[in-house]
């Protein structure tokens, strides 16, 4: 186990292994997303209250799920990098942040589009989930801004890792406080949670989409980390060998 981890942590080994993994992740992810899209749009029955409008959950729910998972991946990777001084972990954290921000943005946009016919407004401050997603987006912005402001990569890694960990402690508190805040001026939330059992024909495409989004996130993350590693190791010999096989002077 330790041996495996040690191998994974070495950039050249990671670079080789991830090249083999990415196509499989893409293929599996695309299959799952195609199944989820087709089944979600054509097979899942029409919702009684929301008609066809509910079908946007097949994009919205997976995006919201990934937006939070990406923050967790980022914070855990940052913690590993800070504690065990593993450079690869910092590269993972750096790669996860922009992806997480984009998925958060997607969740906000789809939530807003869903809200237009359901609530009659593009934005509803009273909905705790939408509001905490917005704050999550701000947290990503802060993290990326701090990273961008520090020129030295090693320093940027460590400083942003501290911020990611402080943020990880705060995310549940923020979510809880937003929920408390909205519970005061509005009774039960507008979206009913699950309701009395979701129909399997609606549920399976959703699970397929979540699985597909997760696999695609994994593939995109690996691709980002690969370029990040190349950039960071640009002075290492293995990178030179890889990019200039003829042995020209670097």
């Amino acid at each position, binding site marked *: 186990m330790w041996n495996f981890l040690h191998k994974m942590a070495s950039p050249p080994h990671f670079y080789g292994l991830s090249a083999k993994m990415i196509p499989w992740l893409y293929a599996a992810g695309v299959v799952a997303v195609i199944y989820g899209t087709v089944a979600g749009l054509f097979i899942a029955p029409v919702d009684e209250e929301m008609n066809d409008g509910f079908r946007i959950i097949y994009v919205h729910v997976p995006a919201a799920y990934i937006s939070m998972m990406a923050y967790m991946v980022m914070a855990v990777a940052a913690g590993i990098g800070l504690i065990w001084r593993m450079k690869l972990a910092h590269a993972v954290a750096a790669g996860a942040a922009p992806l997480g921000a984009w998925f958060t943005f997607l969740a906000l946009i789809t939530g807003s589009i869903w809200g237009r016919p359901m609530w009659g407004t593009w934005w509803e401050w009273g909905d705790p989930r939408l509001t905490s997603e917005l704050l999550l987006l701000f947290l990503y912005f802060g993290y990326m801004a701090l990273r961008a*402001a520090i020129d030295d990569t090693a320093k940027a890694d460590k400083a942003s890792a501290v911020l990611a960990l402080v943020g990880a402690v705060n995310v549940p508190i923020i979510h809880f406080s937003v929920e*408390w805040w909205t519970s005061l001026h509005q009774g039960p939330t507008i979206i009913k949670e699950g309701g009395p059992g979701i129909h399997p024909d609606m549920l399976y495409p959703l699970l397929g989409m979540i699985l597909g989004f997760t696999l695609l996130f994994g593939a995109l993350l690996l691709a980002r980390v690969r370029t990040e590693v190349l950039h960071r190791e640009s002075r290492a010999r293995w990178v030179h060998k890889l990019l200039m096989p003829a042995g020209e002077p670097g």
Partner: protein
Amino acid sequence: MPPLLDGFLAIIRRDLLLAWKRPGDILNPLFFFAMVASLFPLAVGPSPEQLVLNGPGVVWVAALLATLLSLNSLFLSDFEDGSLDQIILSPQPLPLLGLGKAAVHWFLSGLPLVLVSPLIAMTYRMPGEVVGIMMLTLALGTVSLSLLGSIGAALTVGLNRGNALLSLLILPLAMPVLIFGARTVSLAAAGDAVSAGIYFLAAYCMLALTLAPFATAAALKISNE
């Protein structure tokens, strides 16, 4: 090694003395606080119902912004004259020294805000018993903000673009304090129970007191490598 509290007390004494020599640094955030609070009636309109409704939120937003304004200079002069390196190198535990700096920051920016806030509240027609609750929430909340902010100030200390960056880092993290602070005052104004919000603010304050100094210390070491 000298006793544990020596460095802590020395930092507090030194920072208080420095502030005493430059009183403008304390007054500026206070003026800023008062000005932000007076922007709202001018921009939104002076009708009494609106003032009563918006008062708690306005006071809290103004306090948050004023605290952020003063946080930027928390480690700046120490960084510029090199004493920050000495603080980091000292054998005293760095989290405790960071806590000392945050304590002085609260004493010089948080506490004055709490003391001035009744004046603002009065212009917003806040009744007397609500003003007491507001001061309590501000007192608890500004302690948390000083501690949270010291992490951000430590992370951004050597950076040119520190000022805007600090707000970007700290504002989303400070949201729970703002929400609970402002809502609790609103609840008090509506005559509802306020204990839940006050307990939350106190709990958050304790959490920040225990964890934030360690994050600040780690951030200071990283920024000064």
